[in-house]
């Protein structure tokens, strides 16, 4: 890497490094507590630390808001993150693409797995009504969509995917406490691999704490996070299917 694009947090002047922080220390509010907060931030390599507010939460706990300047710079050119590559296509274009290039309906099955009971996210993608004025997959004439709902065990989802001859499986996870989502996603992929089914489907992860990097790392084809529209998912699946078909012929 030769190019350099050095950056730092921005307050009101380029490279001033200003950051805003909020945190609690398990000490009684006092001059010493404020000093401790300040010293702690300097240990984080911050300078010009100003403790702007210190409030007692309860006996032995104090909440601080602080401003400080960061020292290190970062070469932005060295930062890489993936985003799902999707062609922005609308409802009509996607249906036309499937009809033309695949010449049969795509089957997409989705569920929230594990003990997670959150369905609003997967419903937003799959149900007729859709999300933010963008029709859901059930509305697509060229897509057969099956939403199994929540708290679905992985084996049930896999069995249903085989029964419906699904092209793609959508999995939603909202609860992330104690890494519940990682465990559930991993369990699902491992079960598929054990049954030698991993390559049969396009597997997509989604949810408020999901990004593409994480999904790829866990062995998924793609990951979608907050603000995803059904057409993003439909476009991704349709184009991926066209690509796979091209590769076969």
């Amino acid at each position, binding site marked *: 890497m030769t190019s350099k694009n050095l950056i730092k947090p921005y307050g009101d002047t380029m490279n001033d490094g200003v950051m805003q922080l*909020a945190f609690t220390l398990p000490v009684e509010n006092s001059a010493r507590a404020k000093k401790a907060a300040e010293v702690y931030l300097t240990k984080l390599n911050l300078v010009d630390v100003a403790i702007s507010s210190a409030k007692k939460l309860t006996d032995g706990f104090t909440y601080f808001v602080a401003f400080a300047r960061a020292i290190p710079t970062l070469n932005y050119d060295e930062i890489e993150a993936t985003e799902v590559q999707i062609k922005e296509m609308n409802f009509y274009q996607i249906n036309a693409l499937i009809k033309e290039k695949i010449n049969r309906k795509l089957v997409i099955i989705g569920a929230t797995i594990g*003990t997670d009971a959150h369905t609003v996210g997967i419903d937003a993608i799959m149900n007729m009504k859709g999300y933010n004025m963008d029709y859901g997959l059930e509305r697509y004439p060229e897509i057969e969509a099956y939403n199994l709902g929540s708290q679905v065990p992985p084996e049930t989802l896999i069995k249903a995917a085989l029964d419906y001859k699904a092209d793609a499986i959508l999995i939603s996870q909202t609860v992330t406490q104690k890494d519940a989502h990682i465990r559930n996603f991993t369990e699902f992929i491992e079960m598929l691999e054990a049954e030698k089914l991993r390559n049969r489907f396009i597997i997509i992860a989604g949810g408020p704490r999901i990004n593409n990097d994480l999904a790829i790392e866990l062995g998924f084809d793609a990951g979608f996070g907050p603000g995803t529209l059904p057409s993003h998912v439909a476009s991704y699946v349709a184009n991926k299917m066209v690509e796979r078909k091209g590769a076969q012929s």
Partner: protein
Amino acid sequence: MAKINLDKSQVETVKTIAKSIADDIQKFVDEHSTESVERTVLRLYGVDGVDEDKTPLPNKIIEKLLAEVGLNEGVSKYFAKAMVLSKRDGQTTAELLDQNHISFKDTLSVLDVDSLKIEKDLSKKAIHALDNTYNKKLKKQIECPVPPTPWKYLIVATGNIYEDRVQAESAVDSGADIIAVIRSTAQSLLDYIPYGATTEGFGGTYATQENFKIMRKALDKSMKKRGRYVRLVNYSSGLCMSEIAACAAMEDLDMLLNDSMYGILFRDINMKRTFVDQYMSRLICSRANIIINTGEDNYLTTSDAIESAHTVTASQLINEAMGINARLKPELLGLGHAYEINPTVENAFLYELAHAQLARELFPRSPLKYMPPTKYKKTDIFFSHAMDTMFNLASITTNQGIHLAGILTEAIHTPLMQDRYQALDSINYVFNIAKNLGDEIEFKAGGFIENRAKTVLNETEQFLIKVEKMGLMTSISNGLFAGIKRPIDGGKGGPGVIKKAPTYSNPIMDELKKGGKHDQ
């Protein structure tokens, strides 16, 4: 207090329809019991504890009863007869039954006259315990007065009861009037109550009698320190509704989340099971002076808050009617609703005020449970805090009863100690600066707010008429509530519903049906 000009006769009409819907369900309830109701009887008779596999004794005894003689006559009589044979107390008798020293078949030889006295004794003691918690709480409320409404309701949810205790104390220090310990994910689907103090849960802390005790003790201490009564809340929902109510009563809890339909719709629990369980749980709440909190706010997490506002009102009316059937006074009905309108809607605040004021006027004596915005909360904590501030204003203006604190990190994680502080800071600020706003303003006759409230009431009436015609069970199976269809005989826990025999005996329930001590 600002008022909307509601049509009094229409209010009466909707209440009458709701009563007819509830009475129809009550007929079914009166003819049935459930495994969980029978376990509740055992718990109230003093049976507690678990075996090496952590299976609670009440579960084991009911399973044994089912296997040996069936459940249709209820556990009360058989258990009393087992006590005649054992000549020991309830707990020891339960242990002897569990170790198969006594079989329920042996009890068939005992005469009813001999067991009747024991049954009476046991139930008298149980009722006495419920009256005792009622009195104890009342006494505490004299020492530490109940703060004015809206009461500030904060949650703790670390999964570890000892950590929860620290969080709860800090919340009380910052001004909380109510502490709810959020339950661990999916506990509602357990057909037993876990046992002992617990330190590991997902998204919350297990509801166990020991955990109730630990938190109650901590709050009693905080309460004294602050000179203000602090209420403790848990969940009487799921497959163990009435059992939890019994445990909660024994540990002096003040409130329970308890809805006649939530478990059916959102946890896919069998509806017959839920209807029977909710009745028993509410009878207990009534006697033990526990405020129930109903779950109408949940409808709005899956349906649109403007389009479906009337389903919230309709459900409140049904919950109220069923609550009255279970002898709950209006003061014990924390009927739920929520501030969940999409924040990008023009005049969303006016809609919110209309909905909140409508609830206030329909249930003037009830401490309404008002939920903050959650669904449209985004991860931008600063905007989230601004939304909560407006919610606080709506609540104080319409004098809600139980005010759930909106938390700025709602879309991110369960609250940190500092998040709760931030929430209370805004609540305290708004409740103080706008204390009497509701007394000063009037809603313009024929204006937006009044019209909106009337529209919702009209839609509610139409909706209730439909439900009454269909019957509540069929309505739910047709997806009328929250757009979720639940078949009448589907869902979890269905096999645990029991048809009562003519010889069914449950003296505790008979006594509770007469109403709270306070009403007699």
